[in-house]
C-alpha cells in the first residue's frame, strides 16, 4: 500500500511538471491559436539559466530565480515580437515553423551563454520535507505541486474573470472583431508568449534541483508537455493540469508495476487509446462547424 502511495506521489511530481509545461502550450494557444513548439525550451532555459546563475556565477537562489524568470520572459516575448509578428503569412504551419526555429535558436543560445554541461541547482528549501514512517514527500516536490496549484488557479481566474484574460481569448477567436472592440491583438499575443515563458521558467527552475538542467532537454520536456496538453484537451487550462498529472501517474505506475524499460511507450500508448475514445481530449470542446 505504501509502495503504491509512494509511486503515485512520485508520479504526481513528474505529472505536475508536465502540467506546468502543458499550461504554457495552453496560454499561447488560447491567445493566438499557435502551437508553440519552443515551449519545452522555455522550461529548459529556466533550468539552465537558474542552475548556471547559482553554480557558475554563485548568485544566491533568492536572486537567481527572479532573474531567471525575467530573462526567460524577455526571450519568450522576443519570439513573438521578432518571430510571430513578423510572419508574412500567418498560417498554422508557418507559425509553428517559426516556433521550431526559435527552439533551435534558444538551444544554441544556452550552449553559448551558459555552457554545455549538465548542472544541478540547489534545492529551494523553506518548505520542510514530509517524512512519515514509510512515506516521503520531498520539499522540492511540494514546491512543484504548490507552483502548479497557484499558477493554474491564477490562470483560470485570469482567463475567466479578468478583462485581460477575456481580451486575450477574444483576440484569439477573432482578431479583427477584437480589434474593432478596442483590443490590440498584437499586445495580447506578446502577453501570451511572455506569460508562457514565465511559467516555463518557473517550471525549469523548479526541476533543476531534482532532475538535471541541460541545454538539450527542451525537446523531451516539450514532447511530454504537448502530450499532456493533448490528453487534457488542447486549450483548456484545467485539462492541461489534469492531463499532466495523469501522464505522470501513468508513467510512474508503468515504471513501478509494469516494465520500467517501456514506461514511455506505455504512457504514450495509453494516451493514444484515450484519444481514440475522446478525440478532443478529456476537457476539450468538440469543435463542430456548420456546413
Amino acid at each position, binding site marked *: 500500500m505504501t*509502495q503504491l502511495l*509512494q*509511486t503515485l*506521489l*512520485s*508520479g504526481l*511530481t*513528474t505529472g505536475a*511538471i508536465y502540467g506546468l509545461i502543458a499550461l504554457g502550450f495552453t496560454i499561447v494557444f488560447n491567445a493566438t491559436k499557435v502551437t508553440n513548439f519552443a515551449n519545452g525550451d522555455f522550461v529548459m532555459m529556466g533550468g539552465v539559466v537558474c542552475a548556471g546563475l547559482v553554480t557558475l556565477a554563485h548568485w544566491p537562489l533568492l536572486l537567481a530565480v527572479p532573474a531567471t524568470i525575467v530573462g526567460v520572459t524577455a526571450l519568450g516575448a522576443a519570439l513573438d515580437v521578432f518571430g510571430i509578428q513578423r510572419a508574412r503569412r500567418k498560417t498554422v504551419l508557418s507559425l509553428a515553423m517559426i516556433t521550431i526555429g526559435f527552439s533551435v535558436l534558444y538551444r544554441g543560445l544556452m550552449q*553559448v551563454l551558459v*555552457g*554545455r*554541461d*549538465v548542472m*544541478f541547482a540547489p534545492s529551494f528549501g523553506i518548505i520542510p*520535507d514530509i*517524512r512519515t514512517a514509510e512515506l*516521503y514527500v*520531498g520539499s522540492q516536490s511540494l514546491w512543484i505541486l504548490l507552483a502548479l496549484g497557484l499558477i493554474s488557479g491564477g490562470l483560470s481566474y485570469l482567463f475567466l474573470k479578468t478583462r485581460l484574460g477575456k481580451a486575450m481569448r477574444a483576440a484569439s477567436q477573432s482578431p479583427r472583431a477584437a480589434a474593432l472592440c478596442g483590443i490590440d491583438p498584437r499586445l495580447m499575443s506578446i502577453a501570451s508568449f511572455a506569460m508562457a515563458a514565465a511559467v516555463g521558467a518557473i517550471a525549469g527552475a523548479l*526541476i533543476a534541483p*531534482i*532532475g*538535471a538542467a*541541460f541545454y*538539450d*532537454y527542451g525537446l*523531451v520536456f516539450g514532447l511530454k508537455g504537448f502530450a499532456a496538453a493533448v490528453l487534457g484537451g488542447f486549450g483548456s487550462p484545467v485539462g492541461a493540469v489534469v492531463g499532466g498529472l495523469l501522464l505522470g501517474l501513468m508513467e*510512474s*505506475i508503468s*515504471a*513501478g*508495476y509494469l*516494465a*520500467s*524499460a517501456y*514506461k*514511455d511507450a506505455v504512457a504514450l500508448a495509453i494516451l493514444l487509446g484515450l484519444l481514440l475514445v475522446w478525440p478532443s481530449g478529456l476537457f476539450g470542446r468538440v469543435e463542430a462547424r456548420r456546413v
Partner: protein
Amino acid sequence: MQVIRRLKRLADGWKRPIASDAVQIEDDRAFLGNSMMLVQVRHAAGVAAAAALLLALPAQAEEEPIKIGAVLALTGPAGVYGAPAAQGLRVALDDLPGKLVAGRPYKLTIYDSEGNSTKAVQLFRRLVDSNGVDVIVGPSTSGESLSVVPVANQLKVSMLSGGGSEKITNPVTPYAFALAPTDRLMVEFLLGVLKKRGLNRVALIFSMDGFGQSGGTIVQELAAAAGIELVATETFSPQDTSMTPQLIRIREKNPDAVIAWAPNPGPSILLKNAAEIGYKVPVFLSTANALASFTKQTGPAAEGVYASALPIINPASLPDSDPRKAPSVKFADAYQARYGVPPDQTSGLTLDAVLIIEAAAKAITGPITPDKLRAAIETVRICGADGCRVGTPSDHRGLTKDSLVLMQVQNGQWTTVQP
C-alpha cells in the same frame, strides 16, 4: 568575444591563398564545423613541417611528426569524461622527454564530439581524411566508440577508445583498441566484492543507453555463476528526472545491495531519490561514475556509495613494487600542478594511450604509417594507469581484473577501501 575573434580569423583565412598557411586553414576549416576546440601544433617549426608534409619529401621522412588525433566528448553530458581526457592527453604528451614521442615530433589534433555518436563518426572521418592522422585517441564513451569501430576498420586507422563496453573489442577487429577496463572486468570485480562481503541478494538498475545496457546484460549473465541472486532488474531512460518508482520496486524486494550501471547524471539522480525516500542500501557503481565531479553533483546523497575504480585517483597509495606506481604518480603530480585538480580515471586513460603510442612508435623503424602503428600497438606491453597491459592479436585491451580497486565516497572524496 572569442567567437567574434574566431569568425574574424575565419574571414581572413578565406581571403588568403590556400597553400600559404596550411595550419591556419586547417584550424579555420575545423571551426567551420563548429566542433573544433583546439589544434595544437607542438613542433619546433610547425608550419614548416606541415608544408614539408604537403610536399611529402622523402628526404624529410625522419622529421615527419606522428600525427595523433583525438575525438573526445569535451562538452555535453559526457563532458565529464572527455574534458579531463583532453587535459590528460596534453599532460601525458608534455611529460615525454624532450616532448618527443619515441624521438619523433608529434602533432595533436583534438575534436569535440559532444558525446554524440553521429558527430564522433564524422569527426573520425575528418581526422583521417583531412588531418591524415596515424592514430586516434577516443571516442570517450562506449556508445560513440561502437559507432566508430566499423569506420576505423574501413579507414584503416587505429582507435584507442576510452569506452568500457566489451563489444568494442569483442569480437576483435583489426583497428579497434580500447583503454578502459571492460564492463565485464568491472562486473566480475564487483560481483566478487559482493560475494566476499556476503551481499548475496542483489538488485540491478541500469540506463537504456549503450553503456547501461551492455553492463546490465553482463551482470544478468554473470550473477548466477558468481553465486549472486538477482532479485530485481530495473531500467531508466537517460533523460529521466526521477527514478523513485524503480527504487520503490527495488526496496520491496529488500536486496542486500544495489548495482547501478549508468553514465552520469543517472546515478546522481538515483542516489538523490534514494536519500529522499529514506532508502538505505549499499550501492555499487561502475568505473564511469568514480569521478570527482560525480560527488560534487550528487552532494551528501553520494556519501558511502561504492564504485569499482582505477588507482589513478590515488596512485600514491600503491606499494612501491607496483610497476604502475612510477608513471601514474609522475602523471598525477604533473596533472595536479597544471590543472589544480587530481587526475581521474578518464585522464589516466590518456596516460596509457600515450604510453601505448610511444611504445609502439619505438618498435617502428622508418616512417610511421597507420598500418605499421596498428601492428605495433597490437603487441605492445606497458604499465600505466590501469595496470600492466599485455596486448595480443586476440586481445585488444590486454587488461585483467587486478587493475581495479574498490573505492567509496567518504566525506565527499573517493577513497580506496578494502574490497
